[in-house]
């Protein structure tokens, strides 16, 4: 089969093997920390085996090479002939990394390059400690040339063991529905065990042929094989006839014979486990449906607007029916796009393991709530910020071994990554039991970096200090490590989370560890907002941050430090005029309202010219020109067909009010005391 990245088989392989590869990472780390876990061991073994099978069928030899050896290696471990140590794990993980690179190439439709010799050699060295020096000839099974079909007419063409097995695997896969002891498996058994006692019964042979369908190459392959069986005993077919290839040592053939029967059942298990009630759908189709539902929501909103001008009971009722139905559809479609966060979480054990080894620390990553589901796009968007934060926790959070010992802590540090749903939000926390942050160091740094003066800094509550690390250009680590950032990291993480309409907060206990909490909405596509008018335009403000709403006349304005503040419900908030942020003339009217908005660690009072009402909006991405512009998280189409910009208050305020706003809002004691208490 030629390399054809567009064939359906190829795409299926990419998808399934890709998923297997993803879980391999996690399973491997799991296995390393718990070598006795035979379930994990089997899963890893199966994973390699299945990938190998598919790759073999598609003649992706470089992938086969890596998987084949890794599989052999875990085969030995299963037979207790090899102990799983770091020395064994390292080359395997390197092989998995290499596989990842190959898959990336495949996804771009490029045939992957040959596997690096060093990794193969390392694996070989473990497999055959004695024969490291001499190049190991690949175990081969010589099968009659016809099996290759017309594509390759070369008479001397060998089918490698891998390819042969892949072929059989493929057959296995196809006859799933037939179930039971299948014909092909039988052939395999006869062939590979070389059991001379076994004979094909008529039934078995028919069954075998039945299952083969039109896939000519395979039919030919098996037919060729089956022809051989009645005359010569299977065992005679096996040893490869030395042609131009180097002589195959008997040991290699034996190895193949011994292993085969064991591999068969394991290779099949994943297919049996699959539920038949699920369907794989291209995500693009889901996106299309989502977009259409978005449009539907907009039309619903338009009807809601119309309702005011047409007053008729029947119209009202119809609209409210439409309303209910639309909400239901929206909900269902949203569910369709939900994926467990495990999809990103599964990468992290590996990240932590590698990093901990590099830093020579012991760190265990605990995952909690992996089943929590969030929107597919969000899952992907969360990966980068989370990786950064986790690396940070391992690098800056967990102390070096000797420090931990001295502090009387267990040698192994723990990082807990947890996810849970909170209403229409998901809460992610990354908690380490490391050194925590020293408020005094932070104070010192804040002054040194010129972020604020000594006096301000001393009045700043600890919690606000911790949040300083999300400010651009602030890094507490003295030396720069190649592991986590140069102080460019945390502010980028925060920007990223803000772009997802999320919030990030941090708390720390000196000597006890640091906890970072991230709150993001479950979905990115539809957002509840409060529609407000500022000047002549309508804007949408994400509802989650809005705490309260006051009439302007109710509010008393004072001045602190040259800025306007308001005091409401015993708390003082800095006052921001939306008209100032949005370059509109400042006006006064009875319709003006004050919104109390709380954003990760800060709160403020925002004056808008009019509150129009609550609306669920569909977020439309800003075009190339404006993408990434601070102050907006997108735009939406309003009920009357116009456009309303969706405000990202946090970034807009910090952009306009300058860096001193942060210090100011903390200084006014908005939330500091309450949280600290």
């Amino acid at each position, binding site marked *: 089969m030629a390399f054809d990245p567009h064939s359906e088989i190829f795409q299926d392989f990419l998808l399934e093997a890709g998923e297997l590869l993803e879980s391999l990472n996690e399973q491997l780390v799991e296995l390393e920390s718990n070598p006795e876990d035979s379930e994990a061991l089997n899963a890893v073994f199966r994973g390699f085996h299945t990938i190998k099978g598919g790759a073999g069928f598609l003649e992706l030899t470089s992938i086969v090479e890596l998987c084949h050896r890794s599989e052999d290696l875990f085969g030995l471990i299963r037979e207790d002939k090899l102990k799983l140590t770091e020395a064994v794990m390292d080359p395997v993980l390197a092989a998995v990394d290499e596989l990842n690179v190959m898959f990336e190439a495949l996804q771009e439709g490029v045939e992957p390059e040959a596997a690096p010799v060093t990794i193969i050699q390392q694996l070989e060295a473990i497999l055959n400690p004695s024969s490291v020096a001499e190049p190991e000839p690949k175990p081969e099974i010589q099968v009659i040339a016809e099996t290759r079909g017309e594509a390759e007419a070369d008479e001397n063409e060998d089918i490698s063991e891998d390819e042969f097995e892949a072929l059989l695997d493929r057959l296995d896969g196809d006859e799933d529905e037939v179930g039971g002891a299948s014909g092909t498996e039988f052939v395999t058994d006869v062939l590979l065990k070389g059991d001379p006692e076994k004979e094909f019964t008529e039934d078995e042979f028919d069954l075998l042929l039945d299952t083969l369908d039109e896939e000519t190459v395979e039919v030919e392959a098996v037919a060729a094989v089956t022809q051989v069986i009645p005359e010569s005993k299977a065992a005679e077919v096996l040893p490869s006839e030395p042609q131009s290839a180097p002589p195959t040592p008997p040991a290699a053939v034996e190895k193949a014979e011994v292993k085969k029967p064991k591999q068969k059942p394991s290779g099949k298990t994943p297919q049996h486990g699959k539920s038949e009630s699920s369907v794989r759908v291209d995500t693009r189709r889901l996106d299309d449906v989502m977009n259409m539902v978005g449009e539907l929501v907009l039309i619903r909103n338009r009807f809601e607007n119309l309702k005011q001008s047409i007053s008729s009971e029947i119209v009202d009722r119809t609209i409210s029916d439409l309303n209910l139905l639309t909400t239901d559809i929206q909900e269902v479609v949203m569910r369709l796009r939900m994926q467990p966060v495990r999809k990103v979480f599964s990468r992290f054990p590996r990240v932590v393991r590698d990093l901990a080894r590099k830093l020579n620390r012991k760190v265990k990553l605990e995952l909690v709530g992996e089943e929590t589901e969030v929107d597919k796009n969000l899952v992907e968007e969360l990966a980068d910020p989370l990786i950064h934060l986790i690396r940070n926790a391992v690098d800056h959070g967990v102390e070096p071994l000797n420090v931990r010992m001295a502090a009387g802590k267990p040698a192994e540090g723990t990082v807990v990554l947890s996810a849970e749903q909170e209403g229409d939000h998901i809460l992610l926390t990354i908690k380490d039991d490391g050194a925590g942050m020293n408020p005094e160091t932070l104070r010192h740094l804040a002054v040194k970096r010129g972020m604020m003066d000594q006096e301000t800094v001393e009045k700043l509550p600890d919690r606000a200090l911790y949040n300083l690390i999300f400010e651009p250009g602030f890094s507490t680590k003295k030396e720069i490590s190649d592991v986590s950032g140069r102080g460019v990291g945390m502010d980028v993480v925060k920007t990223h989370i803000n772009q997802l309409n999320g919030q990030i907060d941090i708390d720390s206990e000196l000597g006890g560890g640091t906890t970072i909490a991230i709150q993001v909405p479950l979905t990115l596509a539809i957002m509840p907002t409060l529609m407000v008018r500022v000047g002549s335009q309508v804007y949408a403000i994400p509802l989650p941050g809005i705490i309260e709403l006051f009439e302007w006349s109710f509010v008393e304005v004072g001045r602190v430090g040259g800025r306007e503040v308001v005091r409401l419900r015993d708390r003082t908030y800095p006052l921001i005029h939306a008209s100032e942020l949005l370059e509109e003339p400042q006006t006064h009217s009875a319709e003006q309202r004050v919104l109390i908005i709380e954003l990760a660690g800060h709160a403020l009072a925002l004056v808008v010219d009019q509150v129009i009402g609550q609306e669920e909006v569909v977020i439309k991405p800003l075009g190339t*020109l404006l993408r990434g512009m601070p*102050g907006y998280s997108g735009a939406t189409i309003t009920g009357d067909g116009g456009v309303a910009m969706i405000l990202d208050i946090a970034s807009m305020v910090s952009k306009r009010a300058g860096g001193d706003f942060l210090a100011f809002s903390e200084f006014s004691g908005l939330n500091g005391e309450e949280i600290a208490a």
Partner: protein
Amino acid sequence: MKEALLDNRFITFTLNGEIYAIEVLKIQEVIYIPEITKVPGAPSFVVGVINLRGILLTIVDTSVEFGLARQPGTEYSRVVVVSLGQDERVGLLVDGVSEVVSLDLSSREPLPTLGEGKLVQYAYHIVYNDGRPVILLDMERVVDAVSWSSAA
């Protein structure tokens, strides 16, 4: 310049009395000036955004960027919707759309140096059509240069 110029039909339009041209293949449509939603804080050449049949379209006025005076809208003002590939498009505010012409690109000349003007960054060549200079505009280049991410 690229193969895109193989098709030598261009739409010409006026900006401050100067004639500009963009390949016909890159023009999605020409629309009347709709009601534009301002985007406070955006770069000055961004006039705002509009809803173009459910898609958000950013409208730009390049006259400022080219160092020309911004003209008040007239009955001839239009928005030329230029596609930038990959589902991206941008609306260009022009003083008037003139015609579709075939330009003889073999006679194109490099743009005369215009002092400090930024135009030279976005347009490389002029071509004479009926004895009048026509500036060949590369909209992708304009967008690349002025988009928020590259500015920030």
